[in-house]
């Protein structure tokens, strides 16, 4: 069956695409048995004692099955045993197995090595099954140098570099590999401190970005799988924001690719993971922390520009904690500008934007409705909540 291949591709013999697959066998181990996260050998042992069954191989298999119509056009590379070989075998796909592991005792190091090796082999797409930790490992290895996509298998995933489900991951991968005009977007990789998490303290840091295939069904007018990505929308937002920038006012730009587009519109470079400050069209603060921000605010009035970070829709509290409650209060809660591409908003599927500054009273003050700039001359009114629903 040709699936949704066009005739021409079939006739000309699509040149074979290379797919890399890495399965983190312990991701999601803790979840079902009530342990949050699964970093560390101790946690893993405890989980197994509690009867946990690894989720990620099963999830990876669901994703790979979506790729089987393409199998004649694919060259699959994977790691041995539980890090991918078993899954590939169960799907009936052939694969070249590279690398060496110790079955049952794999760690993040193995993931990093696997990703590096597959990059060296020139894979067109790197699929990885796991959670935030796995995403961080992949990022460590390849950064933005090659397209990657996460098959979600972790407990609760904060990184945006994952598809919404294993099947969606498989489909997205298939459509990307099938080609046409490939489109990618940068998606956040979040660093969750799991120890803190287990103590019910959620501390998230923006760790980096991976380049993932862009799913266009969430974008206005998408009729085909291929086409331009988010840049036009981001540029439009940037134009709108730059137009309303006032003189003698500092603009505190949170991390994010949309806020980065604002800096680019002014011809400025922005730190991808950090908070920068622009004033009168110049960069006056790079990768600043709370202290520098408070100092700055002694000398000038300011506005804050934020965009949702991660897959959960947080505009404060995940990846931009430098913009602390004190900073927010000093600037003024009525001087916050939210920006977001329509794609990002729609990926929330109706869930509200979220705030978690650590200051409950401030969170409540920020909740309600916020105007979000989504394009040039386009805004939406969207709900902000300080309570995440599940």
């Amino acid at each position, binding site marked *: 069956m040709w699936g949704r291949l066009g005739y021409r591709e079939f006739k000309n013999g699509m040149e074979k695409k290379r797919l890399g697959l890495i399965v983190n066998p312990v991701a999601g181990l803790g979840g079902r048995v009530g342990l949050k996260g699964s970093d560390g050998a101790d946690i893993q042992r405890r989980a197994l004692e509690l009867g946990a069954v690894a989720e990620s191989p099963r999830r990876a298999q669901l994703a790979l099955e979506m790729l089987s119509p393409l199998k004649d056009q694919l060259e699959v590379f994977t790691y041995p045993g539980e890090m991918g070989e078993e899954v590939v075998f169960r799907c009936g796909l052939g694969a070249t197995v590279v690398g060496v592991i110790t079955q049952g005792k794999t760690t993040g190091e193995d993931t990093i090595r696997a990703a590096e090796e597959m990059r060296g082999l020139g894979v067109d797409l790197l699929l990885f099954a796991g959670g935030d930790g796995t995403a961080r490992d992949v990022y460590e290895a390849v950064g933005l140098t090659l397209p990657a996509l996460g098959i979600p298998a972790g407990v609760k995933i904060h990184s945006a570099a994952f598809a919404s489900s294993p099947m969606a991951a498989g489909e997205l991968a298939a459509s990307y590999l099938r080609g046409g005009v490939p489109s990618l977007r940068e998606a956040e990789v979040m660093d969750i401190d799991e120890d803190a998490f287990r103590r019910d303290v959620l501390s998230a840091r923006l760790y980096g970005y991976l380049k993932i295939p862009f799913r266009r069904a969430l974008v206005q007018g998408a009729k085909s799988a291929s086409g331009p990505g988010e840049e036009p929308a981001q540029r439009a937002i940037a134009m709108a924001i730059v137009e309303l920038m006032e003189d003698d006012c500092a603009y505190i730009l949170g991390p994010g690719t949309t806020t980065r587009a604002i800096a680019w519109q002014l011809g400025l470079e922005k730190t991808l993971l950090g908070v920068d400050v622009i004033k009168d069209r110049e960069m006056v603060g790079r990768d600043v922390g709370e202290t520098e921000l408070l100092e700055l605010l002694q000398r000038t009035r300011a506005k804050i520009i934020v965009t949702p970070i991660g897959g959960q829709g947080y505009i404060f509290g995940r990846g931009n904690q430098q913009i602390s409650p004190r900073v927010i209060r000093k600037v003024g809660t009525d001087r916050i500008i939210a920006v977001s591409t329509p794609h990002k908003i729609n990926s929330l599927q109706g869930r509200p934007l979220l705030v978690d500054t650590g200051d409950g009273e401030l969170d409540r003050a920020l909740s309600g*409705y916020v105007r979000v700039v989504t394009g040039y001359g386009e805004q939406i009114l969207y709900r902000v909540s300080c309570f995440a629903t599940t």
Partner: protein
Amino acid sequence: MEDIRSHRYIDGKPRLRRFHQARWDEPIIFELSCKGQRGILVPDVEEEIREQVGDVMASLPEYMRRKEPPALPELSQPQVLRHYVRLSQENLGTDLNIDVGQGTCTMKYSPKINDQLARAPKVAELHPLQDEDTVQGILEIMYRFEDMLKEISGLDRFSLQPGAGSAAIYTNVSIIRAYHESRGEGDQRDEIITTIFSHPSNAACAKTAGYKVITLYPDEDGYPDLRALKAAVSERTAGLLTTNPEDTGIFNPRIEEFVKVVHEAGGLCSYDQANANGILGITRAGEAHFDLCHFNLHKTFSSPHGCGGPAVGATGVRQELAQFLPAPLVEYDGHRYHLSYDLPHSIGKIGPFYGVAPVVVKAYAWVMSLGAEGLREVAEIAVLNNNYLLKKVLEIPGVSAPYARGKRRIEQVRYSWQELTEETGVHSEELGLRAADFGVHYWTSHHPFIVPEPCTLEPTESYSREELDEYAAILAHVAEEARTNPELVKTAPHNSTIHTIDQAPLDDPNQWAMTWRAYKRKVQEQAE
């Protein structure tokens, strides 16, 4: 002797049709060209004229004379007819299919008598600039129809000039703009508010007219969010554009408050009545204090859709705003109908003349055949049909009707196949294409897909119970196939005119081709 009727049932349930759409594999008309053939001959010019005028082309500068006749295809008349009749068979018009699958389009029956009346020479052979004494008939119909719209909407004056719904929305926005300018607030009021479930043209037309658009997202129950509206209004608000019921089929119970909030902020409210079919005679724009509205005559008022027009978007306003309407308006002095251009504050023309007269004739005839009680019956049965279909569809495992759970809908429903998709990996679009294998349309939603894996169905009053049952049975069957034979669904359609198209070239400047000549050139270039 066998009774064929027994084959209509399997295990007591109606069997689905063994449908196959016409597939003519018809070449592009240029490929049928044969040099020298003529499809029609034009009248000869009399010899005396030729002699007297001489070489008429000589008076044109050289470069203005076309060197060679255009490279149009050359076919004889029967070949042209046959080609187009074959193409006509390769469509599923309302005349052919149970067209409940084109939600928001109100695909109702377009009575043939109305088509007949509108194509008569007494409509077709009228020039719009004829002396008014010679067109009293058509002016009367336009005037009477305007009266009908006034009564149906509760507003005071209508223009039939805009060429469809979006043009009417644009006209309304232009009127809003003129209103604020006349009060010196044109610059100050630069924002228009709409909702994400209103028709996308509300946002697009407002933007075209120069406004910043603020779109409200719904509350958790899928209703337009009043608190969001309150957060959105300000002294910059020019107006609110809202479709009601929205494209989800949900009526906004606080519509009056919405209007009040916007009025208090100094803005005007325009009612997009594209979804009026379920509320004719039930409620009106006037009672909710709207300032403007529009109707789609090719939806609610039964004029046929024509593959995408011609159409009319009738735009209505309160008396105070009538001065801004596009000119001319039809007036009656008790004896004579008259086109009045006495509108010094008019926004200007929207189209060349007065609107698409044959569409107005059809709409007028439709209302005349039904009357007030008939219109109410239209609305009630459209709503009954919709809720009946809703019940049947919700019996299918894997589908849901998000928002306002457990509640009824007005004239359409936006469903979600999310559950089925998660279970089987089959998407809504794919289900729709497989439904086409049974001879019906299926529409998902406007983009973006706020509702995941959407499907929007609008029965209207034109389909029988059996037809609704058939449609639901098709969906149930296709959903079942998604579980038992997903590959079949994912590779659909199989019984349609063509097979899955390759979308990729449509976004690639090197491969897209919007005319035959562009296509031939690119094929040639790639071969080289």
